């Protein structure tokens, strides 16, 4: 496989609130490749969205990227660590290199400007086009994402569009400066199922045409199965399992991944049986469990180890990465624990 466009290692983002520090993202690794989709999946609050924002350097205060590297390979082959850039330097990467599609197309547009204005803004800024040329390009983009009558729609306000159209416009806006990495943060959550399928189709087509690298953030395993090539399962700010979509779905290794997959409703299930759920709930961010952060909810807990030691990321034989003592790291952990108690 070619070199990744974006390679993130040990990313840590923390929020420094008055009540303490929240480790929203706590050591995340992933690679994104040209023309491939990385699915990032996990429950609400596991740090998916913060990861996306960290990459773009737009984490809201009091949040801050405190560690790790985010290496972006630019079109000319130059490799830049986004984490080392100042906000001012980072600005020229937002849009032309990495763009974001948001969860709520209604709230993510300003209601005070036409969609043409909001699409054209980035074009004018990054491509140096004038008003007329920017509008022309905005119309082309709207056409590309399948907005009917783009020349008329370009002067509409977001509140005049349907939810599906708004998300298409959002995608047009994200693609306005020809980014190479597209981060889609729950792009279909707010949409009905039919529209959802259309939007996912659109993303796939665009990816094929342009070789886009897509990071697809979702909590919907169905969307992952349909869209992703690679999957990273996140729990409490960490990637607990990373691998190809086939491997993850067919032979999930981490107990959390297995539990997530079990809790997908299926039409093959026996009627009147309860849908399996994951026991317990996500711990409060200030009350992160010691040891493996999943251990209080884990069905396969290894007592005395999981409660005390944090499982390291282990590369398995089939090229996956798993953070679980069931799959390695036990010896080192035990030695460490004995060393600490001795």
């Amino acid at each position: 496989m070619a070199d990744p466009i974006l390679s993130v290692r040990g990313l840590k983002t923390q929020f420094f609130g008055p009540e303490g520090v929240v480790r929203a993202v706590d050591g995340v690794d992933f690679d994104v490749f040209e023309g491939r989709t990385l699915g990032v999946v996990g429950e609400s609050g596991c740090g998916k969205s913060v990861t996306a924002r960290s990459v773009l350097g737009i984490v809201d205060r009091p949040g801050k990227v405190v560690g790790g590297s985010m290496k972006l390979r630019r079109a000319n082959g130059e490799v830049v660590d986004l984490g080392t850039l100042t906000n001012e330097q980072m600005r020229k990467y937002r849009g032309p290199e990495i763009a974001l599609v948001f969860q709520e197309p209604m709230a993510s547009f300003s209601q005070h400007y036409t969609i043409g204005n909001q699409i054209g803004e980035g074009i004018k800024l990054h491509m140096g086009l004038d008003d007329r040329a920017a509008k022309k390009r905005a119309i082309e983009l709207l056409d590309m994402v399948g907005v009917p009558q783009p020349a008329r729609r370009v002067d509409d306000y977001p509140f005049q569009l349907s939810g599906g159209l708004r998300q298409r416009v959002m995608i047009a806006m994200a693609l306005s400066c020809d980014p190479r990495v597209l981060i889609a943060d729950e792009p279909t959550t707010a949409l009905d199922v039919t529209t959802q399928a259309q939007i996912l189709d659109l993303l796939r087509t665009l990816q094929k045409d342009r070789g886009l690298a897509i990071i697809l953030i979702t909590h919907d395993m169905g969307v992952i199965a349909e869209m992703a090539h690679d999957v990273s399962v996140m729990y409490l700010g960490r990637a607990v399992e990373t691998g190809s979509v086939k491997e993850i779905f067919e032979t999930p290794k981490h107990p959390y991944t297995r539990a997530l997959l079990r809790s997908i409703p299926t039409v093959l299930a026996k009627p009147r049986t309860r849908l399996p759920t994951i026991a317990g709930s996500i711990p409060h961010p200030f009350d992160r469990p010691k040891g493996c952060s999943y251990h209080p909810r884990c069905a396969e807990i290894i007592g005395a180890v999981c409660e005390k030691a944090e499982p390291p990321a282990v590369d398995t034989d089939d090229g996956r990465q798993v953070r679980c003592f069931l799959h390695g790291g036990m010896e080192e952990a035990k030695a460490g624990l004995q060393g600490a108690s001795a």
Partner: protein
Amino acid sequence: MIAFMTRRLLLGVMTIWLISILSFIIIQLPPGDFVDAYIAQLSSSGSQVSAAEAENLRQLYGLGEPFYVQYGKWLARIVTGDFGESMEWRRPVTEVIGDRIWLTLLLSFAALLVTWGLALPIGIFSAVRQYSFADYAFTLVGFIGIAVPNFLLALVIMYFAFVWFGASVGGLFSAEMALAPWSAAKVWDLIKHLPLPALILALGGTAQLIRIMRANLLDELRRPYVVTARAKGLSEARAIIKYPVRAALNPFASNIAYLFPYLVSGSIIVSIVLGLPTVGPLLVKALVAQDMFLAGTIVLLLGVMTVVGTFISDLVLMWVDPRIRHQMD
């Protein structure tokens, strides 16, 4: 949109009509009819009114006839610009009010500009740098501004302006210009006198508007569209001013409608302290003296100005917020 505005305009006319009835009721409120009061007042100052003269007056105002006839006659005269006679000043009401109404409007407008000019940047700053030292400082000043009565502020400012700059503060004109006919020199004199009273009148409203702007903007700053703007690579300043600030502007527009009545009825004491030739002090005097035609006319004018202000406010809101513009169709 045209239909909406026409409807708004018609409603405004209706409201003005209701206000006129109310004003007339106010004129009628004191016991005895107007001519009785007029005669009583004249005789107290030594002059006499003949019975024939009194009868003429009664005829003119339709006294003794049913309420609606009296109201009709009054309204008919108003439409021709005759607002009746001020008993206290013994001159037509229009003459007594005279320039005051325009000076009040001018002062309102000046105060509005000062309010916006101060509240907008300070409100934005306070929200963007929430909990910074400057935010706390502005918050403190803002609360003082809300808590301290305007007239007290006026006195303090007058005192320091006099002690430090030897400036005679008060009024809208220099002594020698106050009664002079309008001329370029008088206008210049007015412009020189305008800023201080405008500032004093604006301060209370400014403090409030800063708080409103800060609160609104704090809400808007957390909205996803701000993240969208940042994700496009906009500079922080541009992202904030173009999007959340624009969205937080609505209260500035709706503020227009209330400023004028506030300036007349809410700031009477300031006007008296500063010796401003506005309508406010006149209204107080008219009410104290039961000079009912003058009082009724001022109430009517205030009502009309408020209705007009609301209409302007609507227009500005439509201009600021496309959602309002499109809801109308």
